[in-house]
């Protein structure tokens, strides 16, 4: 990507490296382990590449406080293992879990099935330190779960694709892992029936961790037929039995885990020219998206986010234009520079650009990485 590559070993070195490059007006490519180059806008050629992959320390972990502070380059898989060893979790379930870093998961706002119950990155991060192009380390939030001291600047970095600053340290709140986790699959002949099942579950007293809806092309990739509803429940054994009883009333049920966390990644690995459109739907629109598109669609039916998988970028380009709010989240790297990845940004894009200009006045950092608009 560029001639100079930096892999700082401490947050201070990261800040210094960014500061030096910026003071020389060098363009910078910023990432962790670069596992998601097909995601977001194109990675432009740059003078310097900065990776946070060398920042791998656990800074503070007191399981009894239910909080942890880690450096941004820590591999997500190690992070998850450490928590699991203490029967705790940060249930983001990001794709590319075995390649990604903690910082990369946040910068791309990656999330997975269990966001229905536990939220996305914005809901589990309680503090962070980020390095700016001025060569400074800035802190937002802290190490306690309730904290309103100062502006919540950290929120801006989540989903920013490294266009504002570099994540150096991230603090999370932790959850105890449930005693039992079980997955259920319900299958239906029509989108309407599946949509009704999703609605019934959402409106019931059940509080499933995940609630996903797949159309037949997506189900077929997993060896299933029809419109499929996938539900994960957590809790004690009698809670799990209760889910089984209640879900049986809603449709034909099997107890089975289907591999949804890496559905998108697996698809992309099979389709070198493939593209994935992420549709930000409302909850009531999600079944409609699943019913109308003929390519494999996985809908996070409990949060409204739908992922439509295309074998080629052309068809994806058509879907991303509407009628729903959508972006082309993954696209072939060679085509990205010419594709319209984010056709209809909201009226708040100008404010976003003002923030970008404040933090990066010379437009040096991860140019175009935010879906080619920033």
């Amino acid at each position: 990507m560029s001639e100079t590559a930096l892999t700082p070993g401490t947050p201070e070195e990261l800040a210094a490296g960014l500061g030096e490059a910026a003071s020389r007006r060098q363009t910078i490519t910023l990432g962790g382990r670069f596992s998601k180059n097909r995601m977001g806008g194109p990675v432009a050629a740059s003078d310097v590449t900065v990776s946070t992959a060398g920042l791998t320390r656990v800074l503070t972990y007191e399981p009894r406080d239910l909080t942890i502070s880690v450096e941004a380059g820590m591999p997500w898989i190690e992070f998850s293992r450490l928590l699991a060893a203490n029967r705790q979790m940060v249930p983001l379930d990001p794709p590319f879990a075995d390649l990604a870093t903690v910082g990369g998961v946040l910068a791309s706002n990656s999330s997975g099935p269990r966001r229905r119950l536990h939220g996305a990155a914005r809901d589990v991060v309680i503090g962070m330190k980020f390095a700016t192009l001025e060569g400074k380390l800035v802190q937002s939030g802290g190490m306690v779960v309730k904290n309103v001291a100062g502006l919540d600047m950290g929120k801006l970095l989540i989903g920013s694709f490294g266009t504002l600053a570099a994540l150096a340290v991230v603090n999370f709140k932790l959850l105890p892992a449930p005693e039992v986790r079980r997955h259920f699959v319900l299958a239906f002949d029509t989108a309407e029936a599946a949509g009704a099942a999703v609605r019934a579950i959402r409106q019931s007293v059940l509080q499933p961790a995940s609630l996903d809806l797949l159309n037949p092309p997506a189900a077929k990739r997993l060896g299933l037929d029809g419109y499929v509803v996938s539900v994960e429940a957590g809790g004690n054994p009698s809670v799990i039995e209760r889910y089984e009883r209640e879900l049986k009333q809603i449709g034909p049920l099997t107890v089975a885990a289907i591999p949804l966390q890496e559905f998108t990644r697996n698809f992309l690995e099979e389709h070198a020219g493939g593209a994935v459109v992420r549709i930000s739907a409302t909850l009531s629109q999600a079944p409609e998206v699943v019913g109308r598109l003929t390519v494999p669609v996985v809908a996070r039916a409990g949060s409204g986010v739908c992922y439509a998988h295309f074998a080629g970028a052309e068809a994806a380009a058509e879907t991303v234009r509407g009628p729903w709010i959508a972006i082309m989240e993954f696209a072939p790297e060679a085509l990205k520079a010419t594709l319209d990845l984010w056709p209809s940004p909201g009226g708040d894009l100008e404010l976003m650009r003002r923030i970008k200009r404040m933090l990066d006045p010379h437009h040096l950092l991860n140019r175009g990485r935010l879906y080619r608009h920033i």
Partner: protein
Amino acid sequence: MLSPEAKKKLAALLGPRGYLDRPEDLSLYEYDGSVDKARPEMVVFPRSTEDVVAIVKIAREHGVPLVGRGAGTGLSGGAIPRAGGITVGFARMNRILEIDLENERAVVQPGVVNLDITLAVQARNYFYAPDPSSQRACTIGGNVAENAGGPHTLAYGVTTNHVLGLEFVLPDGGLHNTGGKEGDLPGYDLTGLLTGSEGTLALVTKVIVRLMRQPEMVKTILAIYNAAEDCGRTVAEITARAITPVAVEMLDGVMLRMVEEATHAGFPMDAAAVLLIELEGLREAVEEQVEQIREVCQECRAREFRVARSAEERELLWKGRKNAFGAVGRVSPSYYVQDGVVPRTQIAPTLGVIGKVGEKYGLTISNIFHAGDGNLHPIILFDTHRPGDLEKAKNAGEEILRHCIDVGGSITGEHGVGMEKNELMDRLFSSDSLDMIRNFKLLFDPENRLNPGKVLPTGKGCLEIRQFALTGAAPIY
């Protein structure tokens, strides 16, 4: 100074019933729930977003400061017009614009009272989760400004976790929208930045909130202790055993007696402390957790363990908790509520520290905690008529907060920094971090006219002045 010309324009815009400017009326808007005061020069009551835009444009034209105000229940001086100017009261923008249960959302104006959202949807089994103790009075606009919490945020998160979109007016009069009913809109999370910005970046005119499905079962437990340390140990043990209550509130003996005299909720008059614990969820989960908590409480030497048997009993226990500040008002002429946060394992030692601070200053400090998430509310009792008492109370409060910082906590969990704690910010944040907050302030409000004098330290006694001058339009930095 608000010029006669500016006043005239505002009066013409809003009509005779749309503003207040007589000194006796303005004096009602010089304070909030905190201990500081400053009088606005005019209070205006917009009825629509268009009114807000027009007010902001007039203020801009005349270089006048603006402060948003909901119900004035805030506890850090967030709604106090420190530099005078115009107070924008949102009391009349109090309509719930849309309830969309299919999408688990409501769209509301900023003056809607927090509890009114839940009241509007509870018959259909939904609720709005953040529940500050002042929820019968406080407004969503104020909640968004301060990123308000409440007892149940232990399980459900604070305001920022339940706000999905905002309409807002910037100090230049520009009207903007961000976020929406949909999940994961691409781009920077401006909603997240504005929530908790304490009215210093924008005036919010519309809020999209998340509604949640009511749980099947709720159980409320009162555990009574003869020693406060045992109470603290119970909280730590609940966490260690991965039991997940939705609220764990602690009241110490002083607090208990005041609350009981005021509400007759059935709290014991002679105990050292109690825990009020709530569990919600599926019947199978709640029933098991009640037994697990019973075990923990017994092991930690609770002298009594009561489970509320009816909705009425539960209501009464919560009434006692939520009216605690009112109960204090009955016995002490003045009180000062603090809002520190410590890591959960530091709760018991911090109780000891607070006791010592009270002894040092000769002041009674009662304690009411959101113990489950380490958010402490020491209430310092004092008498404004006794010379030096207010100073002592403020110093005692500051000493407690310094302890919170020293053990890795925060100076505010849910009340905000405001003009109460801005001088402590440089103990919590580096100068680089404070500079960045200032940069954001300048970006949104280059003339420093929106709620000036809040959040950032004024730099009293330091060489570097990070806060802006309160009066002029030009920032000093």
